């Protein structure tokens, strides 16, 4: 019981932007340093991973392609949770989080598509196929762009927050479709091989660098997300201050 109370207490603490800023300022250097460290280790491990007997060295594209694809879905999930936070709990930072996450998620999705197509050219012989997973990830990319467009289209952040939250939640239908598209339709893209029932089919020598890279990119995402949230809070403060300044200047000329 007391644990739950302290937990909600912490969440309310976070709702104060000043507290959040000081917390983010404290965490960010450590998080950034850890990101660089883990990514460097992951890079080194993936460079030392053996070549595949069929795919040759192109198999190493996997070490960036798969984390990007995972993150593109994780980012949308985080945005959906933030959307719930806006609509249900009215957490003041939830819409900041959703707004900051959208461009990062769009970039990760675009990178997943680009690296996938670079990998697909030598392996499948084509840059692009309209297969279930590729198409649904492309739809995810379009939805990110639509959400960004909607967020930018409204001047009032409070209004755009709720509209964007509703759109984000409706679009969440796509995430399970992406996850299971390779199981539901028999397509060119391989089915899930890392996270699946009965253990991973991937060899240890590939799995370990992949997981390190995934952790590294996840840390990178959270670093960028925190920085973007901090920027967004600062931007709103600047806008508010400008408004106050404009009002007081106006009063000064009138009187």
């Amino acid at each position, binding site marked *: 019981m007391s644990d739950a109370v302290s937990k909600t207490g912490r969440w309310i603490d976070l709702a104060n932007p000043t507290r959040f800023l000081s917390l983010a300022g404290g965490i960010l250097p450590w998080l950034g340093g850890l990101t660089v460290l883990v990514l460097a280790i992951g890079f080194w491990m993936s460079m030392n991973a053996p070549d595949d007997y069929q795919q040759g060295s192109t198999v190493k594209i996997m070490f960036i392609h798969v984390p990007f694809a995972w993150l593109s879905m994780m980012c949308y999930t985080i945005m959906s949770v933030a959307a719930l936070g806006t609509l249900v709990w009215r957490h003041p930072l939830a819409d900041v989080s959703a707004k900051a996450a959208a461009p990062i998620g769009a970039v990760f999705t675009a990178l997943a598509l680009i690296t996938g197509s670079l990998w697909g050219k030598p392996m499948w012989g084509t840059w692009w196929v309209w297969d279930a997973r590729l198409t649904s990830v492309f*739809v995810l990319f379009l*939805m990110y762009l639509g959400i960004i*467009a909607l967020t930018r289209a409204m001047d009032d952040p409070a209004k755009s927050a709720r*509209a964007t939250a509703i759109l984000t939640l409706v*679009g969440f239908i796509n995430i399970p479709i992406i996850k299971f598209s390779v199981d539901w339709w028999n397509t060119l893209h391989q089915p899930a091989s890392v996270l699946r029932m009965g253990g991973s089919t991937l060899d240890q020598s590939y799995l370990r660098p992949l997981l390190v890279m995934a952790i590294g990119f996840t840390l990178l995402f959270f670093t960028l997300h925190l920085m973007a949230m901090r920027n967004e809070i600062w931007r709103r403060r600047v806008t508010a201050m400008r408004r106050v300044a404009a009002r007081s200047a106006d009063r000064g000329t009138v009187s």
Partner: protein
Amino acid sequence: MGALFLRDVRLGLRAGGGALVGILFFLAVIAVVPFGVGPDLKLLARIGAAMLWIGALLATLLGLDRLFQADRDDGSLDLLIMAADRHMLALTILVKCLAHWTVSVLPLVIASPLLGLFMNMEPAAIGATALTLLVGTPAITLIGAVGAAVAVSLPRGGLLVSVIILPLTIPVLIFGVSASYGAVEDPAPFLAPFLILAAITLFFAVLGPVAAAAALRSSAD
């Protein structure tokens, strides 16, 4: 609810309601296809169902921003929102969607067999396409209600509605076209995609109005 339905239908049919523009747009899109792909009748027959679906999808998207815009301009939307304690707002929106569909989308479905003849399609394919359009297009309108409600307070939301709604309508398009092809091509099944299409429509009949009601309520204040 019945009165609201009749009112929306009347407003939509009146000149300037914009319902007829949708049909004209549909005709124009279909008429442009042979210019783009060439007048090869065999090719047209093969892609006919897909072209009819895409034309209907675009024409439906085109009219979506009118769903709430006119009501917002004359203030009746606020009245509808304030009456939410007597009539559930989601139900009101469902009725509005149905009226919008009857006025601006049902004519597209009725016109589609004629355009199917232009595309040199077989009678079975024409029938199947019209049937799938009849079942599938309500889903597009209901998804579009979310977009229209989200963008209602924007000065020029029409294009934005289409952009944010289009990704969500892709499943409708996929299953609609595959059901239309299933009716003529032998190995492909007709019933399975058709039933999934019906399920999508029913699913969005619940989700669409509820989400649109939430969006309208937040935009009202």
